[in-house]
């Protein structure tokens, strides 16, 4: 805290002399020697980089088992350090998260390292699944911030993606072109399960911020996934979803909505649960639609997209999510602009269509800004 600021506040009559001296005393007692720590940190970083460079320069000459032993020793040392400092609760939350993050990444790379040394290979989802099983207890029970929550969520999404990719490939290998609906239905469910479970744990855990982050990440994943499914359905009829898969997704969304509504009886909880219900209804209805072509497909595709994000905007007003409201309104506007270009496809060459589409895009942009200014919730409200 700068003394200059304190004097300025005192001069402006915001605080009295007594408060100013008490703030100064408190800041002096709680100040951290940032300069010293920065130099120590820089020194440690330099030594670390030097060691890494030494090993990297001689990497090819080091025997495979020795390299693996170095990797394993690093993990053991990190685990011991993590246990020692965490059990004494002497660590800042961010440092603790950084240690867990580094440990988990070292664990993940060990699988790749093992494969390189022993020339063994496996589909990507297998080491990812093993990593999730081995590191989830550590990350979920002791994680505190976004690095750990983000890493865990990225691992889960990577696992889902790698498995779906591999599964799709195996089915084509056996000459089966029809997608197994049960597999595609179940494979997309983990984010729904995480959203519901995180909401339930949020109220009971001593780390509600961590579970809140995971819930937000899972819900964001769900809405990104459903938006992509709607967009792809609108642009490419072949990517249509099978009703069986969409029904499984819908049921998982209902379960997540029920869990969130039960766990969080606030405006934000109600709005999230309602949005998941809307997403389930739209997703399932779209899978039931027959394969449309041309203008009909463009209209229905954009209608579903606008309904989804229109619902998000309405929920954002109810729950007071300012940023999300602005994002939803922008996405709806963009989709409408894209629709106008899609419908004017045959006129684009003539120039008239281009002018009309351009004018329409400007009108939509103007309307969006007006709408956003008039209805956006006030700053400072968060989910």
């Amino acid at each position, binding site marked *: 805290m700068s003394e200059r600021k304190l004097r300025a506040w005192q001069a402006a009559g915001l605080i009295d002399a007594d408060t100013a001296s008490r703030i100064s005393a408190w800041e002096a007692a709680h100040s951290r020697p940032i300069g010293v720590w920065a130099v120590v940190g820089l020194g440690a970083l330099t030594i670390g980089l030097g060691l890494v460079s030494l090993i990297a320069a001689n*990497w*090819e000459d080091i025997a495979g*088992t020795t390299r*693996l032993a170095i990797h*394993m020793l690093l*993990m*053991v040392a990190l*685990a011991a350090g*993590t*246990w020692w400092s*965490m*059990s*004494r*609760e002497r660590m800042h939350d961010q440092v603790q998260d950084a240690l867990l993050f580094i*440990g988990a990444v070292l*664990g993940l790379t*060990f*699988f*790749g390292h*093992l*494969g*390189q*040394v*022993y*020339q*063994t*290979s*496996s*589909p*990507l989802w297998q080491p990812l699944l*093993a990593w999730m099983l*081995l*590191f989830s*207890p*550590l990350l979920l*029970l*002791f994680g505190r911030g976004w690095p750990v929550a983000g890493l865990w969520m990225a691992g889960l999404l990577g696992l889902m993606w790698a498995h779906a990719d*591999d599964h799709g*490939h*195996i089915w084509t290998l056996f000459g089966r072109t029809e997608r197994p609906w049960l597999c595609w239905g179940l494979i997309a469910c983990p984010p729904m399960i995480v959203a519901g479970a995180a909401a339930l744990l949020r109220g009971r855990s001593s780390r509600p911020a961590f579970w809140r982050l995971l819930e937000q990440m899972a819900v964001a994943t769900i809405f990104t996934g459903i938006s992509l499914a709607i967009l792809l359905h609108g642009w490419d009829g072949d990517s249509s979803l099978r009703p069986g898969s969409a029904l499984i997704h819908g049921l998982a969304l209902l379960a997540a909505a029920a869990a969130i509504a039960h766990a969080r009886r606030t405006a934000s909880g109600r709005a999230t649960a309602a949005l998941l219900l809307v997403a389930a209804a739209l997703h399932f209805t779209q899978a039931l639609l027959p394969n449309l072509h041309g203008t009909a497909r463009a209209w229905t595709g954009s209608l579903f997209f606008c309904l989804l994000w229109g619902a998000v905007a309405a929920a954002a007003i109810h729950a007071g999510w300012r940023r999300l409201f602005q994002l939803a309104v922008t996405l709806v506007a963009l989709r409408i602009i894209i629709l106008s270009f899609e419908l004017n496809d045959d006129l684009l060459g003539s120039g008239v269509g281009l002018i009309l589409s351009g004018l329409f895009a400007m009108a939509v942009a103007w309307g969006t800004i007006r709408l956003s200014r008039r209805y956006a919730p006030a700053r400072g409200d968060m989910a």
Partner: protein
Amino acid sequence: MMPRRTRLILAAALTLPLAALAGSWAVTHRQAQQGQEWLIPIQGYDPRDLLRGHYVQYRYDWPLAPHQGEDGRFDPSYADALCVTGIAPHIQAVRPLPRTMNADQSCAIILRGTIGTRREIRGLTSDIFYASQSQAIVLSRKLSDPALQGLVRVRVRPDGMLNPVALEFRRRPPPQP
């Protein structure tokens, strides 16, 4: 100080991945020491630079038994298993083994394609060999040299799965006039 129960959970959560990874290493190491070594002719090159490291991709160039080559219908990519004749590590010829036939006295060893592995590894058709960046470039250059015959030294596990050990090169005999 953390409560005793939480400290125990933390210790368990930290030990679980370490123990499992160490166990996985031990099992992989033991498996890598087992089996018989064979030399299989290979062709093709395809150095890759992926996150998982540099590797050279190759295709097996199976020496076919005479009557298999004549009709030209044998494609090892459709074979579940291959019967190898010869004396380790030198393969004389291979022929596909029907699924129902497990043991055959005339086979020196039976090779089986790995199912459910990475896309670059297709049964008994192709495989990959991890190498350092500089090594991968040298290997791929040698593999593309028509004067050299590439061979992969594999260790065949008791279940018939192949594990590459090294890439070797032999000068091809000059073409007959």
